């Protein structure tokens, strides 16, 4: 009997997709046996703009616009790289405030991912519920930075705004509410058939595959790799605020969901510790000079390792800005996961990767 395969595209525009990515699946009956991908649908030339149109001190606001979900990680990675070139030291208070916003960002990004996994798995009510609860985090981000999405909070040398007692109390209040909600999600995700049993052994990435395809972020941690930039670098004092790495075992959608749920709990704990132990001091240090030399910075974005490479020659305009985003690095692993799965599972698997195409295509 001859084996016939058919090619089915998913994207670049598809009802289950949040962002434009195209996967071309080679299917044998229902099984996917080959995958091809294209990610360049929303290319905006931001790297080129950073080395032609904008001065180095305006770029934190430019790179923040690469992505709406991990805007703060982009501007933090860039500013850290520039601070390394200018050999300036940021105050401890500014570092704590930076970590606070990065962790709040991680919480709402993970909540968004979980809600979309529910939606693509056919559980619309849970999607609504998580998106509604996510507003608690969005509210405190808006109070802290003055905007819901584009925070423009981090600048070279520190942060732009200080935290008031009122905002600190609101953050603690809302985080306590979200913490209880996350316990409810954990209960749901472990007992509700639509979310737990249905997702077990679907979209599986084994430990060996994760190593060989260089998976990063929650995708790798769910497969059992102990990799997290927060524990590997020391730009930010994560060990002082109670950071704990979350590692799973199974590598399927269910495991990825639980990695994200546990990371939300850990991030909530870290934010509470930051508010309780916020040091005194200035929020900004004036740094002089122009960036000269090369600098590489790695940061843990909600989706994995974000890398910035900068090269300057003592001028206002930089020579090179290279941005390596987590989704781009994970694409080989994504493609491997699809192989052997059913085509009907593809949207749910894709949602569990939490792909960010505006970061990837930039």
């Amino acid at each position, binding site marked *: 009997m001859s084996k016939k395969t058919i090619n089915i595209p998913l994207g670049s525009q598809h009802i289950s997709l949040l962002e434009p990515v195209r996967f071309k699946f080679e299917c044998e009956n229902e099984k996917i046996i080959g995958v091809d991908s294209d990610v360049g649908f929303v290319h905006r030339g931001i790297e080129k703009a950073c080395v032609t149109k*904008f001065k180095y*001190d*305006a770029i934190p*606001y*430019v790179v923040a*616009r690469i992505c709406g979900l991990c805007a703060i990680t982009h501007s933090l990675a860039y500013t850290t790289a520039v601070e390394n070139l200018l050999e300036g030291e940021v105050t401890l208070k500014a570092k704590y405030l930076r970590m606070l916003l990065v962790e709040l960002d991680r919480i709402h990004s993970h909540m968004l991912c979980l809600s979309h996994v529910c939606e693509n798995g056919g559980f619309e*009510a*849970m999607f*609504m*519920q998580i998106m*509604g609860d996510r*507003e608690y985090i969005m*509210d405190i981000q*808006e*109070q802290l*930075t*003055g*905007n819901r999405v*584009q925070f*423009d909070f981090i*600048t070279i040398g520190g942060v*732009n*705004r200080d935290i008031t007692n*009122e905002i600190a109390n609101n953050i603690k209040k809302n985080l306590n509410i979200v913490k209880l909600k996350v316990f*409810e999600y954990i*209960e*749901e995700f472990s*007992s*509700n*058939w639509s979310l737990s049993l249905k997702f077990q052994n679907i979209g599986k990435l084994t430990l060996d595959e994760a190593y060989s395809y260089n998976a990063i972020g929650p995708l790798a941690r769910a497969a059992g790799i102990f990799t997290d930039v927060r524990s590997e670098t020391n730009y930010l004092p994560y060990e002082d605020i109670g950071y704990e790495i979350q590692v799973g075992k199974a590598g399927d959608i269910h495991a990825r969901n639980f990695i994200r749920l546990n990371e939300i709990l850990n991030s909530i704990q870290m934010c509470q510790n930051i508010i309780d132990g916020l040091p005194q001091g200035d929020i900004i240090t004036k740094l002089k000079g122009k960036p000269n030399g090369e600098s590489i910075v790695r940061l843990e974005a909600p989706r994995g390792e974000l890398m910035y490479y900068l090269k300057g020659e003592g001028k206002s305009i930089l020579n090179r800005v290279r941005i390596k985003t987590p989704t781009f690095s994970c694409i080989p692993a994504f493609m491997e996961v699809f192989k052997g799965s059913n085509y009907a599972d593809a949207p749910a698997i894709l949602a569990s990767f939490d792909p960010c195409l505006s970061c990837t295509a930039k």
Partner: protein
Amino acid sequence: MKVSIKKAFQNLFKEPQTIDYPVSAIDKPKGYRGIIEYGEEECIYCLKCEKVCPPGAILFIHTETPSLNLKNKKSLEYNYNQHLCIYCGECVRACPKPDEALWQSEKKPTIGLKEDRVNDSWFEIEQLKNSK
């Protein structure tokens, strides 16, 4: 499972979480980053705001009818594009007289209409600036 069924029924009788905009107004938090406002009488025309603005939403161009401000020796006129502005507040932080000459309000930008020539009038200002 039982909990989720119970919750689903509870949610049936709950008010929607969305805001009925524009019938009811959206609550803006204290310190909301709105449009930049300018106090012409206090401006010292140092042009620092123009230099630091990331998108170039503040431009000072030469005018035939300058203000009566004595600091305006080069006959400049302040131009601000509220639709190009990203409301980051860099200009206010760079201003030597913040809160008097330049400050960040909590107002939202007005809706940019084609009839108002939002783009075209700004392109003309940019051309004037670049021709100098």
